[in-house]
């Protein structure tokens, strides 16, 4: 596809279960970001991948959160032992990278933890 694709679009899970969210960036985009957005709130930075450089993991809120990216393609965000406060929309964005470059966002994955 032409845009950033995220799956699943909606995920309802029980507290304590693990979830995996997937992001397919735009082909050729070297930069990939994950953000968390709680209802009515701003964008909370989670992690940033730029090419083959070590990712910037400074935004991950706890060791229950992790993310991987295979080269300059698909990324997965994993949340282990989910808690109710993890409920949010998880947005992925990709960018051509480098000095400048707008972010292209996916539609997001809405996670609800019961």
């Amino acid at each position, binding site marked *: 596809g032409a845009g950033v694709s995220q799956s699943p679009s909606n995920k309802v899970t029980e507290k304590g279960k693990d979830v995996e969210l997937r992001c397919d960036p735009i082909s050729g985009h070297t*930069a990939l*970001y994950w*953000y968390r957005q709680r209802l*009515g*709130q*701003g*964008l909370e*930075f989670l992690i*940033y991948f*730029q090419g083959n*450089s070590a990712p*910037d993991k*400074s935004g991950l809120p706890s060791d229950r959160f992790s993310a991987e990216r295979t080269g300059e393609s698909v990324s997965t965000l994993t949340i282990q032992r989910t808690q109710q406060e993890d409920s949010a929309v998880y*947005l992925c*964005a990709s960018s051509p990278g480098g*000095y*400048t470059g*707008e*972010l*292209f*966002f*996916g*539609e*997001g994955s809405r996670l609800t933890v019961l």
Partner: protein
Amino acid sequence: GQQVMQIPQYQHVQEGEDFTTYCNSSTTLSNIQWYKQRPGGHPVFLIQLVKSGEVKKQKRLTFQFGEAKKNSSLHITATQTTDVGTYFCAGKGGGADGLTFGKGTHLIIQP
């Protein structure tokens, strides 16, 4: 780490009135971007400013980047109902830093 503050958090205006949102960074930025997020949607890129003191216009929207490259503003003239949404600024520091978003300004327009 880099912090980007944005005010106001909410702004109610009557249709036809002007609107301004302000963005301030704790550090000098290499560039700043602005995004709009409609209710229920995802952020969409509006513009990027790179140069000190830069001013750019898009129809009724005027974007400014401060001389010190630490602050920016977005001004909308004569708001319309289609302007409803949340406006985010996002700053990029030097080097390989990623983008840091402000918390956004929610624009509510009363017809």
